[in-house]
């Protein structure tokens, strides 16, 4: 029995941390955030070169053949570094192909996804906060799709869109397909691109090798959002600890005041128990299909909700400077706010948990 990370997983996180600290020092991170969600090609390439683009893609197609737990551990580091780019969406497109693609579909797209040459985007939502696979209405007719997907996680650079379809199915649409129009949305989290996707008799490739793929893919996305928010939350706690150990008022470091110490302790107490929740949800995706959905919605609701609360406390602990655009805390807070809202609120996810758990 081992409920913890392996040496390989520790090494994966350490490698990524080294990469983000070198490739993404605070001033560059800030500059990229200012620039908005247009992809920084050089950062994407550097990250893809160390394998980040193909963690879950089978080795036969040039990926690392790892599990959702490994991807979630990587996602934690992406969150704690507020790493820009559609990493989460890209990972899901690869996962969708790996799980539901035909041999020909896998051979056609997976190698380019694994190398990072082709960048994936995800279009799940529909208007009116319809995130659940059962609520998707955009349908396929004779190999073509018409309708609007809302709040897709995709940008200018996206080459391949994973689209959620009526009946909980999913399919792939290429960026240069006929009838596809992308309307960018200006989001508050400038590290991740959003757009609405209009489809007008657009050719689509269905991923049907495994039926009803929409639900499990949503669950994988929920786990990765939780991991991202968890990383962001811990980063905000560390920043608050550093600030409290530096900032002086009344001739002493504010960390000396119990009110400050206790607020920080409460933040750590809220964050640390989430770690195993995310591990378990990710592990269940790969090993306990019967528990998959329930664990994923629990993690998404609990972690993203808690991470935003931690972020708001982190701003408060920074005082006036925390309220400014110049203080990096807001990068991570907005990251957590994205994770909380995308795919549906904690309230919506708790309602789903209540159904899955048959309260």
């Amino acid at each position: 029995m081992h409920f913890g990370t392996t040496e390989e997983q520790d090494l994966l996180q350490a490698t990524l941390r080294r990469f983000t600290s070198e490739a993404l020092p605070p001033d560059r991170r800030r500059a990229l955030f200012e620039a908005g969600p247009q992809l920084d090609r050089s950062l994407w390439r550097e990250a893809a070169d160390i394998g980040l683009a193909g963690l879950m893609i089978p080795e036969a197609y040039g990926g690392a053949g790892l599990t959702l737990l490994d991807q979630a551990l990587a996602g934690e580091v992406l969150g704690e570094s507020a790493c820009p780019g559609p990493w989460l969406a890209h990972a899901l497109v690869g996962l969708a192909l790996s799980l539901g693609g035909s041999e020909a579909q896998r051979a056609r797209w997976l190698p380019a996804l694994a190398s990072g040459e082709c960048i994936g985007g995800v279009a799940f939502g529909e208007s009116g906060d319809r995130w659940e696979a059962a609520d998707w209405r955009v349908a396929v007719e004779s190999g073509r799709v018409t309708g609007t997907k809302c709040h897709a996680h995709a940008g200018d650079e996206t080459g391949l869109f994973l689209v959620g379809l009526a009946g909980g199915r999913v399919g792939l649409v290429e960026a240069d397909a006929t009838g596809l129009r992308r309307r960018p949305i200006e989001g508050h989290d400038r590290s991740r691109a959003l757009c609405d996707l209009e489809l007008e008799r657009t050719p689509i490739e269905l991923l049907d090798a495994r039926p009803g793929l929409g639900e499990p893919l949503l669950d994988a996305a929920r786990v990765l959002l939780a991991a991202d928010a968890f990383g962001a939350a811990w980063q905000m706690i560390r920043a608050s600890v550093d600030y409290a150990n530096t900032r002086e008022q009344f001739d002493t470091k504010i960390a000396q005041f119990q009110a400050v110490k206790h607020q920080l302790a409460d933040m750590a107490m809220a964050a640390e128990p989430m770690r195993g929740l995310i591990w378990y949800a990710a592990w269940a995706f790969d090993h306990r299909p019967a528990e998959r959905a329930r664990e994923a919605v629990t993690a998404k609701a609990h972690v993203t909700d808690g991470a935003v609360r931690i972020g708001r406390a982190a701003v408060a602990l920074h005082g006036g400077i925390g309220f400014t655009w110049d203080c990096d805390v807001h990068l991570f807070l907005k990251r957590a706010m994205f994770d909380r809202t995308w795919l549906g609120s904690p309230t919506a996810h708790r309602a789903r948990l209540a159904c899955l758990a048959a309260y």
Partner: protein
Amino acid sequence: MELEFGPEYDRFREEVLAFLAETPRDVDRRSFLKAATERGYVYRSIPRRFGGSEQPFDPIRESIVAECFDASPFSWRLGPQSTGMLVPTLLEAGSDWQRERFIPPTLLGDFVWCQGYSEPGAGSDLAALRSTARLEGDEWVIDGQKIWTSDADHAGFMFGMFRTEPGADKHAGISYLLLEMDQPGIEVRPLRQITGATHFFEVFFDGARTKADWIVGRRGEGWRVARANLKYERNLGGGPRLRQRFAAVLELARTMRIGDRPASEDSVIRQRLAEIEGHVRCAETMTLRQLSAAARGEDDRVVLPMLVNKLYGTEVGEQIAQLGFDLIGADGLRAPERSTWDAVSTSARDTDWVDQYLFELASGIAAGSSNIQRNVIGERGLGLPRDLRAARARTPA
């Protein structure tokens, strides 16, 4: 990651369950513990010559035993003061005659101990304690007062800290003594709790006596001795306990009605249940992390979970109790019919939740108050500077 225990442990679990199935239902606790010790199920870290079963270190076997025993109809847990505190302290710091004399009967429940630590002026600042013991011939003579002493009405013995070295520094003037409770110099008075029940007491010493060699460790080492058992204390967190209580409040929600529907179908109640279940899953997986780390000798990987266990259990327990209290509606105005000590309500009566709602308050006070827990998490977990109490380690007047 691997969550199966493996065939060796599956066999062990079957063996434990078979033992329980073979045990007669009317067995008394003493015989049950004796048999369980002979089979190597309990007291695994205690040497045979002191009445233990002396088994190889294996936290997974320990947890399997605890889980199976807790689910059985047999009462097997003794007071935490006896097996959780006194026994480990003697193993760590006692002399051989003390271990031989006190540990075996304590393990079977023949000797019941109460803890003499807290005093009216020494709570969170425990080392400020003032009760004294002075050596007169071959006896210590004890004066002063202890408070919040659980089981003092029926415990035969007390272990406690007393000031024996007048003029010494705050922490250096304390000794760890054992004493008999049934003697003329001791008066035990009950304290009525907020729930209305009486489970702890005040203990007054007026020339009480104990033998000179009933000291654990040397004179002035009491503070260190009292802390020695901390390394035996492996609190893996409250996962199983919180799951059990969540199941009880969920059952209550299914039983109570809002309008003409079960409360569990009400969207607000469902939100509250789901929010609590998120916390319960966190607690359960945190327990799993600690069990795994303990079994693999990787305690350094779970430092923060060990530090937040208690406070987290308090906060989540509070949410469960609050929901239970709300669910019983106007019955929340009634006095409870009885008062439980273990506070795990099975919702036999709605008003048990009133009792539980009040009892839950103890969790944030006893055994290190929540604000002290926050200091510890901040200082040891996050590396924040120590507060003023370090600078005030002087002898009380």
